[in-house]
Every structure is written in structure tokens, then in C-alpha cells.
């Protein structure tokens, strides 16, 4: 549906140098899917979104929607942004303060022309109804709460039935509680309308909660694309593993293939382990393993059955309510483990550790 190929953008920095913001970005989004560009600030995700919207002119590359090329550097095509028919919700919402709620939402239909006022009224009211803003239609837009402004911005973006819905960190200006509620709302609305959506955020939790597919970006490049679960459970490199959730990293040397396919025996500084890798490994090479803190099982009693086992000493611990974080020293290294709050091993005491080989991931890329 949306296809972006070889997209590169450049901007002029304050010192007059040309800086590459997005480099060689390429991805495809299927119709009706929720696609997220995730990355830290300055990674090029907003630039990519603005290029799709037509707010920025890329240096090179091609963007097409439903087979219609909206931008192509090589063929010198650039459809004006007001002819692209994309809806967009800005980070600031960009609600026009001199118009009331209805006027804001009706604007896109009015400026397009071709619709009678009664038809506009019906369409706008239907959308406001979906957004739960119907009773506020005549209210001044400046008198709306943050959450209502956000829904109005969304209403305005979808009222014209856009081919593509672009969302630029729409939840970042809301307080934590409201943000969580709007996450559900946004997901429900997107799934109901089935509008293809491109979402930009630096918040990994939002990305994981909302998306069908996530592209993790760093320094202008896409470093990994995949469904939320794959991104979280099988990070390809250290950046992805660290940016999404937190991770323990262990250096190891490959020994040999394990008897199960996809599993390898490796030797780390505190003994031999079985780890999972998506690609084949060469025995004798060094690799980095990533283990999520919640996959580090701690116990005061010895574990039974299969898996990777160690022993360590509790270095410090933090009680967080619904879970407890333990820092455990194992042979001079400190590892983070997230456990059930019922574990109350005192600091300085020994503790048994188990890691499921499935959750012991070899970072294969970069």
C-alpha cells in the first residue's frame, strides 16, 4: 500500500553544513496496518514521516501510495501536500484556536469543495460521534482538555477519509494516565476504521502496544523491522535490545551447534551456555548474548531440569511494587534480574539463577 524506497533527506545545519537526517530508508506497509517508526530523538523518524506527508522534500528516493507515486526524485515528481490526501496529527495537535470544534473538523471537507454544507455537517458529526466529541461541537477549541484536543486532531485527520493517516508523537503531550487510556482508544479507532497508519514515537511501550509492525531507527537508518513481539524477543543488535526494554549483555565464544536446530553452545566468562541464534554461527567466533531482566529467573533453592544455571550474590535490590529488581554479581559481572516481589533474598546472600536457552539471544547484526 505505502511503499518507501531509498529515501534520503538532508538539511542545512546552523553552521551551514549539509546533514543527512534519514539515510536510505525503505519499507512497505500493507493496507489497513499500523506501522510505527520508533527511535530516539534525532534518529530521522520525524523527517521520514514529514517526507511522506510532503512537508519536507527528500534528497532522493521514491514514495508511492496505492501505486500512485507521490514523490520520486529521479522522475522529478512531487505531488503538492494539499493534493496528497493524507491525514496528519501533529505533536502539538495544531488545533486552530480561532475556530470551534466543528469548524476545525469541517475545514478539510470545506476546502476540498464538492460537498454540500448539509453533507459536510453529517460527515463531521459522524466523526465527532466516533471520537466522543459530538456534544462539544460548538465549543471553542481552546476550551478543550489535552485529551479532547488530541481526539479533535484525530477527527480532523480522518474526516476526509485519507488514504494514509500520519501520526507524529500524538500522545507525548498527555499526562501518563491519559496517555495509557488514549493508547487503547487509538488502537480501537485505527482497527475499526482500517485506515493505514504511520506512527512516529520514541516511546517503546506505545510502539509495542499499538503496532502491527515496527521499524526501529537509529542515526538515520532503519536497524530492524518486524512485528512487536519479534522486535522485543529477538533484537538483532545491541541498540535495539537496549532501546526497547533493557537487557543484560554477555560476551561469549561459539563452541558448537546444540542438538536442537537454532541453538548453539557458547562459552561465557561464567561457564557454558546454550543460546538461540537466528543465523548459523561459526565455532570459535565471539558473540554477544542479550538476556532480558525478566528472563533471569532467581531462586533461593537449586533449580531442577534443563537450562542455563549459575549462582550469584545479591548486590542490591529495589522493591517496585508489582515487581522487584535485583542486581546480582556473577563472577565480577553485575546482571539485572526482574523478579516477582515475593523474592526477599537479603543483600549479600547467594542466589540461584536460571536462563531459558530460548530467551538467551545471540545478537547477529552489527
Amino acid at each position, binding site marked *: 500500500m505505502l511503499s518507501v524506497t531509498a529515501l534520503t533527506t538532508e538539511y542545512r545545519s546552523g553552521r551551514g553544513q549539509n546533514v543527512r537526517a534519514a539515510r536510505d530508508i525503505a519499507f512497505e506497509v500493507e493496507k489497513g496496518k499500523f506501522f510505527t517508526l520508533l527511535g530516539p530523538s534525532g534518529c530521522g523518524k520525524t523527517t521520514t514521516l514529514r517526507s511522506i*506527508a*510532503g*512537508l519536507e522534500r527528500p534528497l532522493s528516493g521514491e514514495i508511492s501510495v496505492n*501505486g*500512485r*507515486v507521490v514523490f520520486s526524485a529521479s*522522475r*522529478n*515528481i*512531487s*505531488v*503538492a*501536500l*494539499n*493534493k*496528497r*490526501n*493524507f*491525514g*496528519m496529527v*501533529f*505533536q*502539538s495537535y*495544531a488545533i*486552530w*484556536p*480561532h475556530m470551534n470544534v466543528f469548524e476545525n473538523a469541517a*475545514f*478539510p471537507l470545506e*476546502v*476540498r469543495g464538492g460537498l454540500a454544507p448539509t453533507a459536510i455537517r453529517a460527515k463531521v458529526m459522524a466523526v465527532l460521534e466516533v471520537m466522543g466529541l459530538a456534544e462539544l461541537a460548538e465549543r*471553542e477549541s*481552546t476550551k478543550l482538555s489535552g485529551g479532547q484536543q488530541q481526539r479533535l*486532531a484525530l477527527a*480532523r*485527520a480522518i474526516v*476526509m477519509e485519507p488514504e494514509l493517516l500520519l501520526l507524529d508523537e500524538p500522545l507525548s503531550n498527555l499526562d501518563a494516565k491519559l496517555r495509557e487510556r488514549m493508547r487503547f482508544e487509538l488502537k480501537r479507532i485505527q482497527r475499526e476504521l482500517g485506515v493505514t497508519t504511520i506512527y512516529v514515537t520514541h516511546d517503546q511501550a506505545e510502539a509495542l502496544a499499538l503496532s502491527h509492525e515496527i521499524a526501529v531507527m537509529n542515526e538515520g537508518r532503519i536497524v530492524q523491522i518486524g512485528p512487536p513481539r519479534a522486535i522485543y524477543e529477538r533484537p538483532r543488535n545491541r541498540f535495539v535490545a537496549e532501546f526497547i526494554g533493557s537487557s543484560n549483555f554477555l560476551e561469549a565464544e561459539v563452541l558448537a551447534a546444540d542438538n536442537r536446530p537454532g541453538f548453539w553452545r557458547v562459552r561465557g566468562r561464567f561457564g557454558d551456555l546454550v543460546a538461540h541464534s537466528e543465523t548459523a554461527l561459526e565455532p570459535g567466533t565471539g558473540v554477544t548474548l542479550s538476556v532480558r531482566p525478566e528472563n533471569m529467573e532467581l531462586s533461593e533453592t537449586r533449580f531442577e531440569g534443563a537450562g542455563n544455571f549459575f549462582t550469584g550474590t545479591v548486590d542490591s535490590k529495589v522493591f517496585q511494587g508489582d515487581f522487584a529488581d535485583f542486581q546480582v554479581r556473577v563472577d565480577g559481572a553485575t546482571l539485572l534480574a526482574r523478579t516477582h516481589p515475593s523474592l526477599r533474598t537479603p543483600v549479600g546472600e547467594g542466589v540461584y539463577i536460571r536462563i531459558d536457552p530460548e530467551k538467551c539471544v545471540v545478537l547477529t547484526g552489527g
Partner: protein
Amino acid sequence: MATQEQTALNPAHHASRFDAKWLIIGAAVIVVGWLALVPLVFLIWQSFMTPLAPDMPALFTLANYRNVYTSAETFRLLTNSVIFAGGAAVLSLGLGTSLAWMNERTNTPFKSLFYALSIVPLIIPGILFVAAWIMLASPKIGVLNLLLQRALGTDYVFFDVYTLPGMMWVDGIQHAPIAFLLMSAAFRSMDPSLEESALMSGASLMQVARRVTLRLATPALAASFLILFVRSIESFENPALLGLPAGIQVFTSSIYEALHAYPSDVGLASTYAMTLLVITSGGIYWQSRLSRNSGRYATVSGKAFRPRIMDIGRWRYATGAFFLTYAALVIGLPFLVLVWSSLQRFYAVPSLAALKTVSLANYQAIFDYPSIGTAVWNSIVLALATATAVMALTAVIGWLVLRTRVPGRWLLDNVASLPMVMPGLVVGLAIMISYLALGGGIYGTIWILLIAYLTRFLPYGMRFNTTSLLQLHKELEESAQLSGANWFTTFRRIVLPLLKPGLMAGWLYIVIVSVRELSSSVLLYSPDSIVVSVVLWELWQNGQYVQLSAMGVMLIAVLFVFVLVAQGFGRRFGVREV
């Protein structure tokens, strides 16, 4: 899908969409360029040329510069100008900064009057302020002198405005409100926690004011001084009314004299004007450098902080008295003396005896004044036309400068702000030269006044529009375009309505300064294109002080009502805060 591509590629389609937008922008650029550059070019040209006469073409010459720069007279002019402007700027900066500090940082009483203080001097035309101070403090007829002499039984002259210190005094207190506004803004953008931590370190209030507040405000003080210096060196009414009778000449009064001598010496006037331009350009350039570099003082962030009010205890009676005295000097006394003299058949010191001769005859005389109808009509038309055209023009230019990436937009910004360095008298002179040389028959008509006003007030429009555009989030326009609106629709339905508060404020300001405008008009008017300020000037020249007072009182009253109505209107129908 191929059709879609063709739409995008079709040059005709592209062109039609582009033309409409660029037509307006192009027209605005040409008009602004013409207004700002043509007079300057002709002024420079004239300063190197012999005067144009019907029987003789203009010839290249360096004589103008040679005559000016080898003359001791010029050195005296320069010294007088710099002393006058420097002294006036020091006085107004000192007064304005003290008042701003009292208003922003202390619990001085009568605070609601501070606002009036900043607005009222705006509506008192310069010529009336100076005339009022002559009636107050001239050695022969000054009310203050006569009252003191009568009370003390001497004939000692206490005050004399016809001296260099007298000129500085009048100019300084007249411009102090500008210093007040500039320094208030500086104090407001200063992080109060910097002062609070000094207080908590054990410093006294005065130590905080001296060692923290003032130090932090140093860049703003320097920049304000330069603005005030340029204002004073440009001022015309003060040197003309106070300096010329006493033989104290500065550049502006000398330009006027050179043009009104017989035969008039345009070459000499142009060369003086060029020298003045170099001084004012230097001042403005230095000031803009200072303001730009103030970024390294993290305190001046452009962010408004909640003002912190310090309790200064009994000192507040002293600051309150200081403030009331100032208000009396800048508003009370001048206005009262104008009202008093407007009611007298012949100018007389206020007394019980004189109270019996009070009459409204002078007001009648103003209504009977031959050119008064033409002048009022011209002033109204010029003020409305100038304000509307300037605000519309600079809205487009400001948008172009701030919102597009058109190459050379910084140049356009500078061109539109260029007239800022040109004193009114120099604008008048340059436009006179330009349209005498270009012909076209507009010299001597009201059109040449309109051109002069547009040129003079272009920078004000730029300032109002760029300030409000900067506050306007760019995403408000982008979302309109993504909604399918083209440039016109976006500009008309989003940008202009959101700029409305700034547009209204700027419009109002330009209407008022247009009505007050004297220094350009006095060189360009003809009997048909006379304006209100020039009538005041004529009355003064004719020695009709009492009629001048009557007209002044009416003008101030009208402008005051206009400001009140316009502000009430703005509050009611203005756009809500963004």
C-alpha cells in the same frame, strides 16, 4: 495511476498553481524594495551631484563632501548632535530603567498608572510636548519660572529650555517611556531564581538590584541606550523649536535650514543626511549585534517568567513619589499648560485674574482655520491608508521571510527594516529628491506623503508581524495544507485570523504615528496635501501659541479616545490567546 503522475508533472498545472501565490508575493517584494531602496539610492546620488535646475543638468561633484568635511561648522554640528543625543539617552535610560525596576520588581504604589505612562506619551505629538515645555520652562514666558519668581520675589531665571541641557531634559523625559518599555521587557524575561538565590545568600535588596539584576540587564541596557541615542539624534521637533532660536544646531535642524535657506542647498542637506545616516546605521547595527549576542546570557530567554515582587518597605513611599513626579513632568504639567493656554486669548501665567479671561475662542479659531478641513481629511486618509497597506504588505513579507526557504529572504528582511535607520527628515529629503528626479507628477500631491509614510513605518509593520508570526506554531499552517487547503486558503483562513491581534496592534500604532508624523511631512507637503501635524507646525511658526494649544488639546483628546475605542474593540473581537 499514470494520470496522477501526469498531473504532478504537467507544467501548465504546476505553473497555474504557482503563479497565483508568487504573484502576490512578487508584488509585495517589488513594492517593499521600491519603497526602501529608491530613496536611499537617490539620496546617495544627490550627495555626489550638483543641484538639478531647469536650465542646468546635475553634474558629478565631490564639492558637497569637501565643503562639509573641511568646515569647522560640521565639527560643531557633530559635537552638538552627539552631546544632545547622548545626554538625552542617558537621562531617558536612567529614568526608564528605574521606573521599570520599580514596576517589575517592587511593591511601589500607583502601579496601575504605569500603563498609562507608557501609552499617553505615544499620543502626545512631539511638537506639542516640546511646545508645552517651552510654555513651562522658557526664560521669559515659562510658567515654572514666572511662578517661582513671583513666589520668591526675584527675577532669577530658574529654568531655560533654550540650552543644550534644556534640550536634553525635554528629549530625555519624552523618550523615557520607550526606555521603560524596553527595560520592563528585559526584567520580565529574567529568571527570578537568579535574584532569589542572591537574596538567600544573604544579600540585601539593594545589593541584589545592583549586583545581580543590573548586571544581568547589562546587554539590554546597552541595546536600549543605542536605540534611545538613535531616536534622539533623529529627533527634529526638539532641535528645531529649542535649538534653532538659541543657535544650537544639530544635524536634523541643519538639514531643515539648508533646505529652507534661499537658495536652498539640496547638496549640502544630502551630505548632512548621509553623515547622519552613517551614525544611525552604526547605532542600529551595533544594537542588533548586541541583541543577537545576548543569547549567551542564558537569562534572556524570550520566555516570560512570573514576576517576583520584592517588599521594599518604607522605600515604597519614595519610589511612589518619584513615579508621581515623573508622571507629572511627562503627562500632567505639559497637558495642563496646553489646556490653560488654549483657554486664554493671549498667553498669560495661571492666576485668579487670568481665570476671568478664560474663553473658548481659540477652539473656534481652529475650526475657522483656512486649511483645517483639508488637513484633517488628509491626515485621516493617510493614517488609515498607511496603516492598512503597511500591515498587509509586511504580513506577506514576514511570512515569506519566516516561513519559506526562498533564497535571499534574509536580504528582504533587511531591506524592509532598512528605513529604521533613516530619520524622518532624511526620508522626506530622499523622497523629495527621488520624485523630483523621477517626475511622474506625484511631487506636491498627497501621494508623495503616502509613499513617505509607507517607507517610514514599514519597519514597524515588520516588527509587529514577525513577532506574532514567530509565536504562531508552524504546524497550524501545515495541518491546513495537509487538509487540502492551498496557499491562498491557508493564508486567508489560518494565518491572517491568527495574526489578527498583532495586525490590530500594529495597525493602531501606525495610525497614531502617522497622525503625529511631522519631520517627513514638513518637507513634502503642499497647500493641497497639508496634514494636521503641519498645521501645528505652521501655528508655531506664526507664533499663534494659544491656537496651537487649542488644536493640541483636541488632537490629544481624539487620539486618546481612538486608542481607548480601538483597544476595547480589540478585546471584544480580538482572537483568543493561542
